[in-house]
């Protein structure tokens, strides 16, 4: 039986200046190699929970375990070698004169030696598709490119777990897909990917596990198909399933929704549904 790499035990969290709890009775396990998307309305606690995974926030009550070890007392700068956290706005971390220096910052802090840093820099830039910009100033890059640079800079520390807060907000479709494909590639290489997102369509396309939070608690936890197949429960917390699921749910209620990933998939499913109504003599006429 595999051990979870991240685990919380009865986690409660309250900001010191506030009365209400931002997180309540959170018990969650995340296993190596998962691709998890945390969804929920703004204020539901998803980012607050994710910040516990690399020690930026500490539990008011309860514990957080990383690879079986209690994270209490271990500072974030030490946890950073295992858990990488990429913030929503890349401009909150970019500071260096060149892309090269930007990438090298994390590894340097971790004490990697120079030759290792050089080879890692090349590798991560290749992975995010920014190799040609290695000596350019980061601010000369577009927003989508800066987001990828931020991911590369965190990747360079070689963490097993990557947490990315809202990887695609404010970006166009093309850039969003680029980033999600990158995350999928990293996941296939063995990284555990944890994201938060408001884009249900992308979540259903890429995540293999969806955790829906509301009011500081975990409301639903399962595959995208399972979570998005219950529109009533979703509506209670003001979440709408991706449009394709809504249609599939309505017109093919008994179908296997794991087949529905793209609009074309839905069309195929609907076609089978409608086609199934035709008398045998007319089938094969198409």
């Amino acid at each position, binding site marked *: 039986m595999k051990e979870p790499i991240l685990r919380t035990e009865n986690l409660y969290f309250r900001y010191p200046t506030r009365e209400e709890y931002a997180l309540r009775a959170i018990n969650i396990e995340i296993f190596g190699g998962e691709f998890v998307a945390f969804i929920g309305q*703004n204020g539901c606690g998803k980012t607050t929970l994710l910040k516990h995974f690399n020690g930026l926030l500490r539990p008011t009550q309860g514990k957080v375990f990383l690879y079986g070890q209690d994270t209490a007392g271990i500072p974030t700068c030490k946890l950073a070698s295992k858990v990488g956290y990429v913030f929503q706005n890349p401009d909150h971390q970019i500071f260096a004169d060149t892309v090269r220096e930007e990438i090298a910052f994390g590894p340097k802090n971790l004490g990697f030696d120079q030759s290792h840093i050089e080879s890692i820099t090349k590798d991560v830039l290749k992975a995010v598709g920014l190799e040609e910009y290695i000596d350019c100033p980061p601010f000369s890059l577009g927003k989508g490119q800066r987001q990828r640079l931020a991911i590369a800079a965190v990747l360079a520390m070689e963490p097993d777990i990557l947490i990315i807060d809202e990887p695609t907000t404010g970006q166009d479709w093309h850039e969003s897909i680029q980033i999600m494909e990158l995350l999928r590639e990293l996941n296939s290489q063995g990284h555990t990917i944890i994201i938060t997102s408001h884009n249900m369509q992308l979540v259903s396309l890429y995540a293999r596990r969806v955790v829906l939070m509301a009011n500081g608690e975990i409301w639903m936890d399962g595959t995208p198909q399972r979570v998005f197949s219950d529109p009533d429960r979703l509506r209670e917390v003001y979440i709408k399933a991706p*449009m394709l699921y809504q249609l599939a749910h309505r017109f093919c209620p008994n179908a296997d929704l794991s087949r529905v990933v793209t609009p074309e998939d839905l069309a195929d499913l609907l076609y089978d549904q409608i086609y199934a109504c035709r008398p045998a003599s007319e089938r094969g006429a198409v």
Partner: protein
Amino acid sequence: MPLIEVKDLTFTYRGASQPALKGVSFTIEAGEFVGLIGPTGAGKTTLCMALAGIIPFTVLGKMGGRVWIAGMNTIEHEVAELAQVIGLVLQDAQAQLLMTDVEKEIVFPLENLALPREEIARRLEAALDLVHLKEMRRLHPFYLSGGQRQRVALASILAMEPQILVLDEATSELDPVGVEEVLSVVSELKAKGKTIILVEHNMEELVRFADRVIVLRAGRIVADGPARQILTNISLLQDIGVYPPQITLVGQRLRELGLDLPELPLTLDEGITMLEQLVKAHANLSGEERVVK
């Protein structure tokens, strides 16, 4: 005379090697709802700022061609004058709010225009009503959600009662609830006949409102026509890097599979109607009960 007229508009940002806009021309009549789409870097924000007069004097660069807003040449009029006719709401809500509470934010432009107090009071209440933020009037924007902040930004611009409203990706940084809040205000404005230009990445949001769509790529207009015509042109959209409405893609695929669809659906409602009709048609044809797998 058209409300907005753009002729051969070219603009190069100061210090840039390439023009951001290359000879853009179009007109917009009063009451139209125009969607402006295109990939990142196409020049949509540049165009919006040129319409509002921010370009070329506040944001510097070399401008060629002309922009007329309600007959006013934007180069010959102050932005403050133009702001009374064309209002611009930008992507980043935080960046556009200057005051420490909602009420001050909304009255700020009206005070700047030296309107009398009674007029300011009237417009303040009207604006708060329109964006449904009456209870939040004394709150600092720090305490507001993204959707609420954008509504405040909208209210502040609408208080000047401009004829034209330009929204430059006003919802792209909001969560779904915030998006809905802002778009429902847009919907009410459309119903009131305001001329609106909506820059959008998300086609599902755009199809709800747009009568006409202008497509921008690399600083040039590559298409300009009725919304239905452009947004169901899947190959065009994919070619410029914009993701077509999903329901349209579903319709396209059903057509490829051989089903007879007179028109590709654009909105979710149209899609549902189309599917219901298809199901009925085939059930009638076969005379059999619908088989549910």
